[in-house]
């Protein structure tokens, strides 16, 4: 964690105030100044911390550009585009189903995802996807550390958005810190009000996009602004607006460090073969300014203690203290450090993606290994295997699933019924599921019960026969009460109901159940 206890950032801050909006290359000069006042290795403090609680030091991260920052931009734009845009994609499913590509239809208990339609009894698909997401997180973490946290986690993405808003309204790091420290004037009040109203708009838009997944988006927008949408829509938007602004606008890295359970698990998921953002201390230490290093070659490492890596960090940590819980592996410090190294003419990669094993090897004078090699190792292979296996199993299940389904619930109270003509009747509740977006005729037949006839609650006993035909509405389950009668002398035995769709597919589902008769068991 960025515990400023032992480190006096004010030196850097003071310095920055005099030269606001400086380009990164001025960091070299910065560092010169910083080094003058700030010894890299202070003697350990001997006084004990008396505070139980600590005031939060707000993180004002500095703008940076570089390959990782550009990748972060890319991921941010893609994820946001997916989040905000998906509900607006249309998907023609015929006249009986909604035409929204991704829709969680809670009222009708359907989940639509492009060509796939999930029914409640198929929730294992969703469970499978959740398991894949979990194992995917293991896979990513074991391979590249907290990269999910650094790029794709919603908390990170929205924090990033809000930090850009800060930058847009208040300027870059130094200007923001100056404004934070400044007394409340009308100018500051207005500026803050402006900034927070942008926060609110973003939060509102975020909550608004969320509810689009649960109803037809264009209709919902229309109803929403006319005040005709369901109360739950307004409540959801209000709650999500509030949480987005609170968590993304104000809590930010506090969520990643104190609230999120993942960094706790992450420490168990990482090992010495995982690619993580590391500071190569054997190369950087001891820290010294360019001037000092020029005077005393071989005495100082590559790190000039310019603290650019700290200033750009969105969680405000110092990566040079080693791998730590607050590091979300976003690699912005790599961008910053590489730029400084370029400016002072030293090789890049003082802070870099590397495994702890590589670090040891390099420290011992070994050859650096290309980063991608770290990805291919048994542990990631096993995770990938499990992950891909579940994915293939889900795809297979999706491919072979039937669009008709029959469930049979025999009446158990009473189990059988003696009729006045001496025949024995059993009653069943059949559920006929038509999972296609068109009405379908289906035939129910009694199979394996000699002499049996059946009728349903809709046709009546006078039309009793071996088979009955019913129509099931598009995308619906139809509950049919079926009566099966066997002439005098029936005995308890097993038999089957066979459901057959009367269309070109002729899908068949057979369910075995029991016929009960008196005098048995």
């Amino acid at each position, binding site marked *: 964690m960025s515990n400023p206890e032992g480190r006096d950032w004010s030196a850097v801050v003071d310095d920055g105030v005099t030269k606001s909006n400086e380009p990164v290359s001025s960091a070299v000069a910065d560092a010169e100044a910083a080094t003058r006042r700030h010894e890299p290795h202070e003697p350990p403090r001997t006084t004990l911390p008396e*505070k139980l609680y600590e005031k939060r030091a707000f993180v004002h991260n500095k703008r940076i550009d570089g390959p990782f920052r550009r990748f972060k931009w890319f991921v941010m734009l893609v994820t946001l585009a997916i989040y905000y845009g998906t509900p607006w994609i249309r998907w023609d499913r015929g006249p009986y189903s909604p035409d929204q590509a991704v829709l969680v239809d809670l009222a009708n208990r359907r989940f639509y995802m492009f060509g796939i339609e999930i029914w409640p009894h198929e929730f294992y698909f969703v469970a499978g996807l959740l398991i894949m997401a979990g194992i995917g997180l293991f896979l990513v973490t074991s391979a590249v550390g907290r990269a999910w946290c650094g790029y794709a986690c919603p908390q990170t993405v929205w924090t990033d958005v809000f930090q850009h808003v800060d930058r847009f309204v208040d300027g870059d790091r130094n200007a923001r810190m100056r404004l934070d420290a400044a007394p409340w004037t009308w100018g500051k009040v207005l500026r803050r009000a402006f900034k927070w109203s942008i926060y609110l708009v973003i939060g509102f838009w975020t909550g608004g996009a969320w509810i689009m997944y649960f109803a037809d988006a264009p209709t919902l927008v229309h109803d929403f602004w006319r005040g005709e949408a369901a109360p739950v829509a307004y409540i959801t938007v209000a709650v999500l607006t509030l949480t987005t602004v609170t968590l993304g606008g104000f809590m930010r890295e506090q969520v990643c460090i104190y609230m999120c359970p993942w960094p706790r698990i992450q420490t168990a998921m990482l090992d010495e073969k995982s690619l993580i953002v590391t500071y190569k201390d054997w190369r950087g230490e001891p820290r010294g300014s360019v001037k000092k290093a020029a005077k005393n070659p071989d005495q100082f490492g590559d790190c000039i203690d310019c603290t650019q890596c700290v200033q750009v960090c969105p969680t405000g940590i110092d990566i040079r203290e080693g791998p730590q819980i607050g590091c979300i592996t976003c690699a912005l410090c790599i961008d910053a450090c590489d730029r400084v190294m370029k400016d002072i003419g030293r090789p890049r990669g003082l802070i870099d993606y590397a495994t702890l094993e590589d670090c040891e090897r390099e420290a011992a004078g070994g050859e650096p290994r290309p980063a991608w090699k770290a990805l291919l190792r048994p542990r990631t292979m096993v995770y990938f295997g499990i992950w891909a296996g579940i994915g293939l199993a889900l795809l297979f299940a999706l491919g072979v699933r039937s669009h008709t389904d029959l469930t049979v619930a025999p009446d158990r109270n009473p189990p059988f019924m003696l009729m006045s003509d001496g025949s024995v009747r059993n009653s069943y509740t059949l559920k006929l599921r038509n999972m296609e977006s068109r009405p379908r005729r289906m035939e129910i037949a009694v199979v394996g019960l000699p002499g049996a006839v059946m009728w349903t609650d809709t046709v009546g006993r006078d039309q009793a026969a071996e088979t009955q035909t019913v129509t099931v509405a598009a995308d619906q389950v139809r509950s049919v009460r079926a009566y099966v009668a066997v002439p005098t002398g029936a005995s308890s035995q097993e038999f089957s109901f066979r459901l057959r769709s009367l269309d070109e597919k002729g899908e068949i589902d057979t369910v075995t159940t029991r016929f009960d008769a008196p005098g048995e068991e």
Partner: protein
Amino acid sequence: MVNKRVDQPTGTETVGHEWDGIEELNTPLPRWWLWTFYLTIVFAIGYVIAFPAWPMIDRATTGYLGWSSRGQLAEEMSVADQARASVREQLAQVPIERLSDNSELLQKAVAGGAAAFKVNCVQCHGSGAAGSHELGYPNLNDDDWLWGGDLKTIEYTLTHGIRQPGDEGTRTSAMPPFAGAFNPQQLDALVSHVLSLSGKEKPNAAGASLFADNCAACHGAGGEGNRSLGAPRLNDAIWLRGSSREALKQQILQPRMGVMPHWQGRLDPVTIKMLAAYVHSLGGGEDFVEVAADPEVKVDEQP
């Protein structure tokens, strides 16, 4: 004994524990955490004031908002009642013999009847409506009806009951006890004849003559029963009081006849209508035969 020390690189005191060489730093908690804690206390105080909280001797404090779980239940029940009101209104208007024309309404009536059945009828007829041989409660699932099994008739039975004292419209009839009327041989012959009506035993002349003299007036010459009297059919497979010889003898010598309470005045007409629809739906319901073509005979008139 804990061994506290100051961690050199961070300058932070450790808490003094050590696990496999890993020590925990005593880092101060963020202050907002403390404020969150204070907020929960403020919330709790507000909650205690607003909602029922403190248990007193016979009740809890009521809370400033006056909310209670019972009150909420009553509110939700009344909302549900209002939601059902339109269905009940429709049901009140539709004559029961026309109910099957509107399948959606019928479905709702059956569902409502199923709920009412569980409260009012299962005590005698059983939760599956299968009745009881021993106690003589008819099975409502089968197709044998003492007094008739169409919607209208069932509704009438429900409304007025059977042998219900104090209800002028109640269905009433009595089988006379034949104790002392037959000698044992005659009784055996009669029982054999009755059982032969449904093919359980061989017919015999003595029994047939006894049956014709004593029983056919109500039960019919062939034992086909008489619904206007509630006289059971004897030539089918269903026996209200059991089909063993002993059961039959007892029923001839000391007949037992069931009583069913009337439900008018205890259940409203709509609920009775729904119950009738439910009982009719159990699998043995009969079609209503229109008799109103003859203006002299009113549909409402029941035996």
